């Protein structure tokens, strides 16, 4: 999952990004509203974490312009403004959630997971296809009843394919959602990750879970349990 953090406080921005990256998310960061709007419009983020009091362009103005331009990514507002009218204003401007500073990392991660899950139509933390089970909350993967140890990047690739099960996902889309823009992505990074996942699945006795769409990308076939059917994006 790829997230955008728009926060003017450098320390908070960096520590948030550090925590979310460590949790397996691809994270982009910007420090002002204008840059935030450009990023939000040009990249298909799975979630935007947005401060309100931003230089150049106020967070709420950014949000309204983003929604007016049909931006669909869920938005989580992080703000020190704690009064009811502030929260109402934020949610009515198009935010999906509102978290007041200061907050605990655990709570932020839980909200990020819930928002990402909901935006993909996932109704449960556990997604299962045949013998393969993905625990989105614990970020664990089981195949044939056994836990398979996946590094964060491979888990992120598999998770993205799972939440988009039944739909072919292009390599570019995988790159966009799994790798942050500030990381250099090798041209075969996605293919290498898929190969590694397939090896581990085969070792667990699961074959043919991930199909290759030649010249395009990859797909996990079938609608897994724990997910609502979703329209193609």
């Amino acid at each position, binding site marked *: 999952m790829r997230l955008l953090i728009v926060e003017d406080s450098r320390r908070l921005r960096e520590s948030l990004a550090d925590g979310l990256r460590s949790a397996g998310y691809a994270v982009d960061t910007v420090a002002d509203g204008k840059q935030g709007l450009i990023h939000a419009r040009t990249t298909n983020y799975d979630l935007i974490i947005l401060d309100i009091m931003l*230089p150049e362009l106020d967070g709420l103005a950014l949000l309204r312009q983003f929604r007016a331009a049909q931006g669909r990514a869920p938005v989580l507002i992080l703000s020190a*403004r*704690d009064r009811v009218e502030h929260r109402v204003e934020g949610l009515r401007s198009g935010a999906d959630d509102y978290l007041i*500073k*200061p907050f605990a990392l655990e709570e932020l991660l839980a909200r990020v997971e819930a928002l990402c899950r909901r935006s993909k139509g996932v109704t449960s933390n556990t997604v299962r296809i045949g013998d393969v089970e993905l625990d989105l909350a614990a970020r664990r993967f089981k195949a044939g009843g056994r836990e398979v140890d996946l590094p964060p990047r491979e888990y992120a690739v598999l998770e993205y394919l799972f939440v988009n099960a039944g739909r072919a996902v292009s390599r570019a889309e995988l790159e966009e959602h799994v790798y942050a823009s500030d990381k250099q992505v090798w041209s075969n990074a996605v293919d290498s990750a898929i190969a590694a996942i397939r090896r581990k699945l085969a070792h667990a006795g699961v074959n043919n879970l991930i199909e290759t769409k030649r010249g395009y990308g990859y797909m996990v076939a079938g609608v897994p349990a724990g997910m609502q059917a979703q329209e193609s994006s």
Partner: protein
Amino acid sequence: MNSIRRSLLVFIVGGCALVLIAAGSTVQAVAGSVLRRQLDASLTAQAKSLAALVVFETADPEDPADADDEPGLVFDYKGSLTYEALGVLMRIRDEEGEVLAASPEWPRELEHPVGGIEPEDGASVRSEVIPGIGPARVVTLAAYATSEPDEEAGETTGRPTDDVVLVEVAGSTANVDRAVGAVLGALLAGGALAGAGMSVTVWLGVRRALQPLERLRRGLDAIAEADDRIREPAANYPVELRPVIGAVEQLLARLRAAMERERRFTDAAAHELRTPIAELRMIADVAERWPEQERLQRGMAEVGAVADEMETLLESLLAVARGEMHRAGGPDEGVEPVQLLSAVRAALRGRTEGLKERDIACEAAGDERAQWTARRGAALAIVRNLIDNACEYTPPGGTVRISARVEGDRHILEIANGPVDLSNEDTERMFEPFWRAEQARSDRSHSGLGLAIVTSLAHALKLKVSARVDPDRTLSIRVASGER
């Protein structure tokens, strides 16, 4: 109990009662005086009538019956002289004091010297208490006795002689006292009725007059946070209450403004304090969950930096609070002359290089005599914060001009910097704590309290602070002593 209604009742009814008493007393005194004068006039007339009855009788030589009579004064009245018959007591004496006639009840103790009273003196009146008739008025007058009329010459009345008689007439004042008592009784009864009626009228009138106050109280009670105005228009109230309503409206407006300032301050303070706490919390949570050596070291360094910034913020808030404390009447000690240009040079020390790097032209000039008599630390803090503010918020290529001057009794420091993206509306709020032209906090090296410290300390030092933005986008902040 302090009550307008009771005060009005006491003052109006008490005042009217005093007026009634004074009027009654006057009427009683005047009536008594008039009746006594009438009595005195009546007694005097009676005395004159009695005096006219005294004749100088001479013996008729042809009348053998008068052969033995000596000529002399005779009271020529044959009727009874008793109090019952005359209604008064009387006594007539000649110049030697010999009684010519007297009522039998005339008391012995009621003596009056004979000499010294002449007929030309008129009647003298005095009050006495006479046994048997009580309080009385006694009229004394001297009169010339008359001769017997010469009937042969056709006289009907005699001619005055040289003989003088002293006539005394005493009449009871009982009738006068009864009449005065009746007048007093009538006045008391009328006054009591008038007082009762007035009390009721005043009570009703005061109650009616105070009804608008009760309406005003209900109007004030009804003021809610969302509707903080008196709903009923001031024109509906009596003219006496309209200034009060105006004052209340003004007070409410000031309260609204103060509450709005307070709200902005708490919002800004919450923002300023929550963000560093959020940073600390996030650094700690991430380090706890993924405790890698490099992250821990980086986190510790960041925590130290956040602590430094929070300390600076706390010091700034304390500076504002101390200024407020002095403003509220704190100790006014340690006051000394602070030379303004010296303070400016001290504040600029160490800033020159930074300004050069940003291509900002900075000039400080003025009158060396310009000075504030103030606590040195506070005065220097004002100068330093103003210069920090000007240097920090002047864009590259801009200018900072500092001048100190003396105008009459006023010693003025003016700091102008520009170009700035501010309007004159901004100058009304720029001295509020945490106010920033750009509300975002991309750089927390400045707390947003610099100008709040300036205004707080300036008020404490009785300096006047004002600001304006000129059409060329120059912000000028002026701090002056000797102005109100």
